[in-house]
């Protein structure tokens, strides 16, 4: 397909990411991009070129992301984007498997003494422009017969700044984002609490634009490969031990028995490379957002189906 | 004053409408007018000449307080010109002025130019003001242009309108500051003709001009200024034929040979 050819010809992947969401897409103090979304960009680069650095990151605001992917400004949008029907159809996107199951939540200052989102009638809410968050917020207050004052600002930084300055009572975004903001941005993290209500389903997934199914396949199976690897216990540390495994399923994934790579138009070692350099889904999760990170997120819905979560890879065969 | 040649002559003969005594003026450090004594009788026609920069304009502009003098006294029509705004406005009503560059109001028609001051200063009804304006416009032979704008007229026509505009205030004195020097030669005559007509009607006039023909034919008195002082004043006849001071002679030799 045209996108895949273009990427191959160019020698790197153009990936749209969040400009500043700790744990998902964020440049660290030395300017290196980090985060779960970022790691999936790298994983695709590894699948194609066996080099996690063959990616060029384009930081995008919520409002810029769809025009950017539509226009071809980026090949892959990995920017905590919620899968919705409109986006799949009229925006013209194809969503890869969900990399993070999220839900929208609220953060408030402890001093307000609010315990539940149901108590937020009349509150002023800071929200980023052009997100599903903005829509869910409206829906939630509508269904609960409450009113609110939105303060809608374009960039995430500005939204956070407005909230912490006291312009709003409530900050709303995906729960994972709230955790990141509280951990990384709040002047005093303990002054703020995240309310228990999760008001929406926010399955976050990488997306590509319509028109190149092969490229879509590459991205889709890159994600599945990491999940499948976790299911089988393959990690970046022990992957080499599995190379000689007799398990035909493992052989197929790691390319010991050929065929899968060719079908995707990739090197037979594609999955091996991904796991070796980026790790499996669990590793990526823990590294970026897990309990040992400032975000301190539990696996929850993002646990494997075998552990009662939702992460379920399609069979690689 | 002994210095002023011809000062011994008994000017003016009639009742004085303008009286300047010991008038001095400075621009910053620059002494422009030096001890000006001048008395103008009702109906008198005075031509002022002198080299460029000698203070002619400054002097007549002091007479309606467009410039402020710093020493001496100026009394016009019985009113002394001091800082008092009321007095100044009273004097300005009685003193008409025509400028070198016409200074018509470009956003008003000829007629409106003429009626503006009568309506707003003399508080005349519009109809009356217009009627009078048309009379004066006719007199300067430009009545048919009354509804044009100044920008549509030639220089000579504009200057005639400017004269009519001043006349509409029925002034007692008219000041002219080189009224023809910004005009094309063909237009000089039409303006001079109007001024001669005015003079014949007995208007008190002070006119800064280099048109010596005009001076000879209408002036009662010619005043020669140089470096801020009145050097000589005399009847035109005497002035042109028997200039007293060297400076006058030099000046006359220059302009008449030209």
């Amino acid at each position, binding site marked *: 397909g045209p996108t895949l050819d273009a990427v191959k010809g160019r020698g790197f992947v153009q990936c749209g990411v969040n400009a500043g969401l700790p744990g998902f897409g964020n440049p660290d103090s030395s300017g290196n991009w980090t985060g779960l979304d970022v790691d999936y960009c790298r994983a695709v680069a590894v699948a194609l070129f066996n080099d996690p650095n063959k990616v060029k990151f384009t930081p995008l605001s919520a409002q810029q992301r769809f*025009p950017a992917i539509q226009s071809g400004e980026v090949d892959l949008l990995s920017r905590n984007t919620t899968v919705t029907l409109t986006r799949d159809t009229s925006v013209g996107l194809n969503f890869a498997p969900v990399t993070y199951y999220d839900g929208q939540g609220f953060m408030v200052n402890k001093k307000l003494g609010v315990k539940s989102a149901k108590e937020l009638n009349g509150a002023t809410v800071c929200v980023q422009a052009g997100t599903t968050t903005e829509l869910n917020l409206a829906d939630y207050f509508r269904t609960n017969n409450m009113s609110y004052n939105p303060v809608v600002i374009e960039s995430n*930084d500005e939204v956070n700044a407005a909230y912490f300055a006291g312009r709003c009572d409530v900050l709303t975004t995906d729960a994972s984002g709230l955790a990141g903001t509280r951990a990384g941005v709040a002047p005093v993290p303990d002054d703020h609490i995240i309310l228990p209500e999760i008001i929406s389903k926010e399955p976050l997934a990488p997306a590509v634009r319509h028109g190149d199914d092969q490229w879509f396949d590459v991205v889709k199976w890159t994600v599945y490969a990491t999940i499948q690897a976790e299911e089988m216990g393959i990690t970046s540390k022990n992957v080499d031990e599995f190379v000689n495994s007799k398990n035909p399923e493992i052989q197929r994934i790691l390319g010991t028995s050929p065929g899968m790579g060719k079908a995707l138009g990739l090197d037979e070692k594609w999955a091996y490379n991904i796991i070796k350099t980026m790790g499996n889904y669990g590793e990526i999760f823990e590294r970026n957002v897990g309990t040992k990170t400032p975000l301190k997120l539990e696996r929850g819905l993002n646990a494997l189906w075998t552990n009662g979560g939702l992460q379920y890879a399609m069979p690689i065969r | 004053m002994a210095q002023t040649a011809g000062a011994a002559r008994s000017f003016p003969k009639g009742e004085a409408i303008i009286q300047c005594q010991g008038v001095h003026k400075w621009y910053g450090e620059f002494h422009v007018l030096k001890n000006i004594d001048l008395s103008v009788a009702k109906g008198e026609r005075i031509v002022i000449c002198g080299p460029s920069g000698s203070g002619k304009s400054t002097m007549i502009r002091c007479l309606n307080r467009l410039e402020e003098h710093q020493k001496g006294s100026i009394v016009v029509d019985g009113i002394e010109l001091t800082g008092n705004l009321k007095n100044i406005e009273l004097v300005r009503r009685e003193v008409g002025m025509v400028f070198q560059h016409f200074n018509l109001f470009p956003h008003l028609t000829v007629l409106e130019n003429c009626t503006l001051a009568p309506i707003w200063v003399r508080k005349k009804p519009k109809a009356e003001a217009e009627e009078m304006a048309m009379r004066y416009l006719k007199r300067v032979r430009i009545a048919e242009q009354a509804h044009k704008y100044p920008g549509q007229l030639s220089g000579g026509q504009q200057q005639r309108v400017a004269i009519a505009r001043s006349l509409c205030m029925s002034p007692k004195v008219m000041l002219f500051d080189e009224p023809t020097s910004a005009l094309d030669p063909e237009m000089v005559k039409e303006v001079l003709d109007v001024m001669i007509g005015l003079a014949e009607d007995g208007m008190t006039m002070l006119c800064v001009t280099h048109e010596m023909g005009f001076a000879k034919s209408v002036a009662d008195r010619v005043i020669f200024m140089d470096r801020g*002082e009145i050097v000589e004043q005399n009847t035109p006849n005497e002035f042109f034929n028997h200039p007293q001071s060297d400076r006058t002679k030099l000046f006359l030799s220059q302009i008449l040979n030209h």
Partner: protein
Amino acid sequence: MTDNVHTGNVPTGSIPDERPPSNTVGPVAWLRNNLFNTWYNALLTILIAWLLFKAIPPLLDWLIFSANSFGTPPQVCRQEGGACWTFVSEKLRFVMFGTFPYDEQWRPLITIVIIIALVLASCDRRFWKPWLALVWIAGLTAVGVLMWGGVLGLTYVENTLWGGLPLTLMLSVVGLSVAFPASVLLALGRRSQLPAIRVISVTYIELIRGVPLISLLFMASVMFPLFLPTGVNFDKLLRAQIAFIMFAAAYMAEAIRGGLQAIPKGQYEAADALGLNYWQAMGKIILPQALAISIPPLVNTFISFFKDTSLVIIIGLYDLLGTAKAALSDPAWRGFYREAYLFIGVIYWVFCYSMSKYSQKLERDLRRGHRR
């Protein structure tokens, strides 16, 4: 005819000059004329003097006297009140150079120096010679080499990492130097006798001038590839630059058109009568004069254009304003926006103000050169 005007002895005046009365000159007279000439002016003077007296000491106090010295940690700053200049010293390099690799930041520094030197050199009318163009080409090449690297042993730096003052300067200087020739053509096009060319120029100019710059930038930053064949694309910085050029060209064309209109018809006729053809007449006679007349409006366009480079923050490029905001979003330093905005405000101001002063000087010079 004899030349009689300037010969002969000029007699001197008979009354000697006197000094003006003492109450009309000197400082007291100045005060009276400039501050207390009427009763309402006297009142206003007193009122304003009182306001200034109220406002200036606290301002100076915040700025200087109770300002915290360099090195005071932010927590202390917050308690002390006063300006916290540590913020500026701490974030100076980030604000000035953005995310350019820390160890390589001497490169953007030299870039700034080169660009400023080029601009200063071009300000001197003695240097308005053809070789100045060569110096510019050389200078801009050097800037490119320094910023990108990849040759001469310099490490390669992607332009997504550029930021701060070099980015601001490059966007405006490169933008203006490309937009300028384009705008001359547009201005000529707008005054062309050929209806089709005139219509196209007018449409372009009016269309661009009718919409806000940010909508153009937005289009350039995210929608541009839609207009190109699949797979063809330029880099984002370049596209922002193109948007700026399109924008600046339209505005400058209008400034130049004003100058063209001010050239008297006689100049065109004289050029024609001498047998110069269209391009010679334009190049040698009309444009030099028209551009000289257009300098004040042109410099005004330059100034507003320089200020407008700050809008790239909206499409995610880190120019000077962008880096300052990024520095402010550091949780440790949140709230020192007065210091941050004051600092970059001063930088912008110095550039714009010197430009406007320069244009005034140039205007005077040119006028003196041509008139008596």
